[in-house]
């Protein structure tokens, strides 16, 4: 999850030079490929749970579950995870961000979990998500699927499934926009930030 998603109200930023990386068709193809890869590696849907990380990971997890379910003819469990309380920057940020209830459909003991998020960046959100998942039991395996891997990891974390590898500079930001949240399906790369405080990197 990119930092901009930290306050869950962040929407598209206007007035910055941007480049479209994927359009709606491109996004659909990328998710279709990821859904096939998940099935191929798991050899089916047994014990498979797709867990979307709030906010944009949740609709992506739903779409992947639909695709996987359609390919196999069996429904796949989908969960929603709010990792806020597990973040390592709560103290730095001061005012506590709003929480939403997580919703995990089953005890995860022996489940094979695929965590789903929009953008993989520093890896800190994924670290928080791994800790949060442990409250739901000891999963047999946890994997990570993201729409965009933009590099710049600060922790030893990598994705198992990547929709699009996108080398970026730290000044840029990547937005995965989804119909469910933003009213449009696309992935855009936004150029250098206008105001210096527009980005909230500690």
């Amino acid at each position, binding site marked *: 999850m990119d930092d901009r998603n930290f306050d869950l109200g962040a929407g598209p930023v206007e007035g910055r030079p941007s480049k479209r990386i994927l359009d709606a068709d491109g996004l659909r193809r990328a998710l279709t490929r990821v859904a096939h890869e998940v099935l191929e590696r798991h050899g089916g849907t047994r014990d498979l749970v797709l867990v979307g990380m709030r906010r944009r990971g949740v609709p992506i997890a739903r779409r992947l579950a639909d695709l996987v379910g359609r390919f196999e003819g069996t429904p796949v469990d989908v969960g929603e995870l709010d990792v806020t309380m597990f973040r390592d920057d709560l103290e730095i940020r001061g005012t506590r961000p709003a929480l939403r*209830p997580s919703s995990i459909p089953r005890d995860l003991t022996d489940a094979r979990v695929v965590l789903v998020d929009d953008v993989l960046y520093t890896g800190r959100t994924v670290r928080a998500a791994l800790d949060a998942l442990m409250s739901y039991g000891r999963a047999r395996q946890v994997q990570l699927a993201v729409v965009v891997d933009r590099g710049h990891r600060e922790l030893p974390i990598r994705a198992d499934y990547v929709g699009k590898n996108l080398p970026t500079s730290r000044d840029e930001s990547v937005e995965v926009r989804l119909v469910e949240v933003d009213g449009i399906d696309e992935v855009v790369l936004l150029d250098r930030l206008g105001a210096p405080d527009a980005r909230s990197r500690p």
Partner: protein
Amino acid sequence: MRRKDVLDLDDFSPDEIREVLETTSAMKEVLARPIKRVPPLRGKTIVNCFYEASTRTRVSFELAAKNLSADVVNISASGSSVEKGESLVDTTRTLQALGADMVVMRHAASGAPYAVARELSASVINGGDGWHAHPTQALLDLFTVQSRLGRIDGRRIAIIGDVLHSRVARSAAWGFATMGASVILCAPPTLLPIGLDTAILAGLRAKGVATEVAGTPAVAMTHDIDAALRDADVVMALRVQRERMDAGLLPSLREYARAYGLTRERLARARFGAVVLHPGPMNEGVEIAPDVAHGSQSAIEEQVTNGVAVRMAVLYLLAGGRAGPAV
């Protein structure tokens, strides 16, 4: 939430209460997990200062703090330096010097947590002060009603019993009225504090909250229990203490039960399916009949469970209110 202390709901805006209730939903989900511990208060020290007897509030704050990974210290008047005559403010200053980030205080004197909050940079949460306020109890009542009825605004809340000595009734009246419900306080004439309704109405007006709900005042008082129960969506019974009879305020518990006890027959005069609340501990057969206390309309056990989630929400939100840049 940007505040240092939670002392009463009289200075809470509807948005702040909403924020607490939303956070409480997330905390309730945490309580349903196989492992109920989350880390946001790691490294924080919370001191529970209970100068007056309490089971549910103290245990509930302790569990809430532990579920959030805080370190918790409990002190009570007996066995502490209070017995050596140390003043309240000095005791809490010492607690702060020992590293307390938050102090939860229950005290028999109305206003005690205010005196402490003024002196400390640590957050102070009122866990009940005298006859004055019990804000986290009111928040858990609000959350319980919202979970049961879906919404709070427009509802009619009847609070029945010893209103005069009840911090629960005062904070609940502030909370429900702030959220757009109408509250009717009902007690025998000797236990109904004259002017409480107009005082709360003036306070609501001052914070810009409606003082009328569908043509009825946001807070009203009566000693007619039938009038109080009419159209009530929520009925809260308050505990009656034996000491009140010694003071000559009530002739006998039996007479009180006959005139003001919440029985099945009386409850039938409220709205169909009205929610029954009680802050506990209950005197079954006095202010509430056992079949009402444990019947299908009772949310009394839920209140206790929700109490932990509400206190987790308050601790979580307060921990971010004092320091740190706005990001």
